[in-house]
């Protein structure tokens, strides 16, 4: 086992992880940052659209440009980055960490402080033939197109009209694909109006109260059958429609990726508003396990802007524990970030999250 010269391990180099690194390095703390991907940035590296949100959190900037801006904040001398490397386990009671370095060899480390910023993973839904080649998650489609320049197919059915479904549909159009239909199980479109209007203006038919019944094809997707849903989300017989497509793109929500936290022994609770089961945490972003913090989508699916603040909060709270900054200075910065977070969540789209956080803070993990 390596006895490390690092003070903190940050797992995940998305907006949450990068911001945590920025705060830690500013306080002179040595960090090991591990990310599974070949480049840092997490979800941002595939987001070619201009960001929504507030200006102090990069609204108007394209997602792909944000990681560079964040990395400028980080003192390179204090950060060691293992990219294309995966943290595969955190073993209690000593926080022994296994890292699959360069996807080649396993290394064992031990850390007093760990920030889990592993983001979220895409949901899958149940329908006949949902394992046929040609069925993708929206995130995978985005990675293929925006990161690697590969078009997944020609004629698409998009399932799910949240922001991601809307944005990815638009990006598919930009890439020259045909989105034949966008279906949504809920009675109305879930995403922001700006994104929805673009899609509708481009003439993509959007059908609400509709879901996918089955994929057609033997070797790969050749079509799909959709069906209408009544107000109780039951399928309405006789409303089945067949559509000829070669690709089905599922954009049906994200679930926090917190398996490492569970492995480390962090207690979980169920909060629907934050994405279901999540690790319990306090307002310092610390979990039930001493020294293990969690930030970003990993502790409740939200957005990049809030992920960034949560990452900063986790970093600052560790700096405070390590006494690398005066308590007063820490508290001031922590308060500033808490205020930004509140501001960010104050709009109508933040209501659900605020409700979730309220429930979280009302509960102990016992």
């Amino acid at each position, binding site marked *: 086992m390596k006895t490390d010269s690092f003070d903190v391990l940050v797992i995940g180099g998305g907006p949450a992880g990068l911001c945590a690194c920025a705060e830690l390095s500013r306080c002179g703390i040595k960090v090991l940052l591990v990310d599974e991907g070949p480049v840092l940035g997490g979800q941002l590296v595939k987001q070619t659209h201009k960001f929504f949100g507030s200006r102090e959190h990069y609204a108007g900037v394209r997602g792909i440009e944000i990681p560079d801006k964040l990395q400028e904040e980080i003192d390179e001398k204090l950060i060691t980055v293992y990219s294309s490397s995966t943290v595969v*386990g955190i*073993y*209690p009671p000593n926080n*022994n960490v*296994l890292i699959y370095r360069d996807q080649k060899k396993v290394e*064992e480390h031990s850390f007093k402080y760990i920030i889990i910023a592993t983001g979220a993973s895409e949901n899958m839904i149940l329908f006949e033939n949902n394992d046929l080649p040609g069925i993708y998650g929206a995130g995978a489609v985005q990675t293929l197109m925006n990161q690697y320049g590969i078009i997944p197919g020609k004629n698409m059915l998009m399932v799910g009209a949240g922001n991601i479904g809307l944005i990815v549909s638009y990006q598919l159009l930009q890439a020259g694909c045909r989105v034949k239909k966008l279906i949504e199980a809920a009675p109305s479109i879930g995403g922001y109006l700006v994104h929805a209007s673009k899609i509708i203006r481009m003439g993509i038919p959007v059908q609400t109260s509709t879901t996918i019944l089955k994929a057609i094809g033997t070797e790969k997707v050749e079509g799909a059958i959709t069906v209408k849903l009544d107000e109780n989300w039951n399928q309405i017989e006789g409303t089945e429609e067949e559509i000829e497509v070669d690709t089905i793109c599922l954009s049906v929500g994200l679930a926090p990726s917190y398996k490492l936290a569970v*492995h480390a*022994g962090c207690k979980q609770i169920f909060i629907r508003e934050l994405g279901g089961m999540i690790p319990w945490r306090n307002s310092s972003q610390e979990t039930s396990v001493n020294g293990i913090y969690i930030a970003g989508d990993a502790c409740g699916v939200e957005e990049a802007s809030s992920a960034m603040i949560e990452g900063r909060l986790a970093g600052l709270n560790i700096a405070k524990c390590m006494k690398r900054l005066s308590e007063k200075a820490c508290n001031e910065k922590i308060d500033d970030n808490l205020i930004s977070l509140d501001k960010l969540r104050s709009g109508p789209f933040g209501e659900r999250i605020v409700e979730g956080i309220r429930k979280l803070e009302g509960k102990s993990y016992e």
Partner: protein
Amino acid sequence: MLPKTADIVIIGGGINGTSLAYYLAKKGIKNIVILEKNFVCSGATGRCGAGIRQQWGTPENTSLAMEAVKLFETLSEELDWDIEYEQCGYLIPAFTDEFADQFSKNVRMQKKLGLDVSYLTPQEAKDIVPDLCVDNVRAATYCSTDGGGNPLLTTYAYAHRAKELGVKIHTKTEVTDITVSGGNITSVVTDKGTISTPMIFNAAGGHSQEIAAMVDIDLPINSYRHQILVTEPVEHFFDPMIISFDYNIYFRQVKHGSILMGCSDTSEKPGYDTTSTLDFIKDITTRSIKIMPKLKKLNVLRQWAGLYNVTPDAMPIIGDVADVGGYFQAVGFSGHGYMLGPKVATLMAELIADGKRDEIIDRLSLERFKSGNITVDSSVC
């Protein structure tokens, strides 16, 4: 809602509880209730290696396992459910003369009971598993009718068919006490309410001693954590379960290509902890590649742990007891309750429903520990 009364309450939704419910219901017993504190298969059953072997060190374990194999051979058909049972064989290499001697005695006993088992040279063992490293192998034993199944499918199938026959399964319901009056069971208390019942069946796996203690029965049983892992699936390259008592390890390639691998840690203390450790991974990977170097290339997907419910002679405790009327049990399987559970359940169903007492029930009763002269099965890992 928990029913107010039952004719029998089965505690535990593992292989033992569900199979007993099925066989009892098939015999026409009504008002059977299974109480399970978590979910079906949450105990040892859903975590086990699911090997089915007849090459044991005592006649009791061997003959019971031979009967169990007969049952497994037609179980998919009986339950109309593919439980992924396969007779892929068990190969048991001996790396010391001591085990080689022991094995030849075992084989003699097993053959006398009618088991088709062979005592092999290292080369013959390598012919069966070409990737086996036989450098230090002294001898091996092999039985082609040994094998394994899928414990989740088996238990769900039993539970499903039992439900069809009217059995009620209450999950997330924990038994907290059992009341006895005039020497007979009268009711079961749970965190969701109380059920009056004249009979209970203790099938609580790693927690069986806690249930027994509720009716003042002191079982000579301890639970121990056993860890296990599964690798990524790869193309099929060996058939039998390989098990070594020298290395305290077993592994087999299951149907979809993954390798299931477990080992015993002799320093483990009795307890109920089921967390996974890093030491286990390091330990088992070092041990296993000595037996099969090719395993070195595989990636580990997951690791987990479950409880062995262990008796002093490594044989289960089954049947009724003298002092508490209406109390029945099938506990202390000592790491081989998946393979023995269904057969034991048929015997227990005959005892409970028909009053028919197979002689093995007496041989494996709690009473045997009173005499003090027990024979320990050492073919355990």
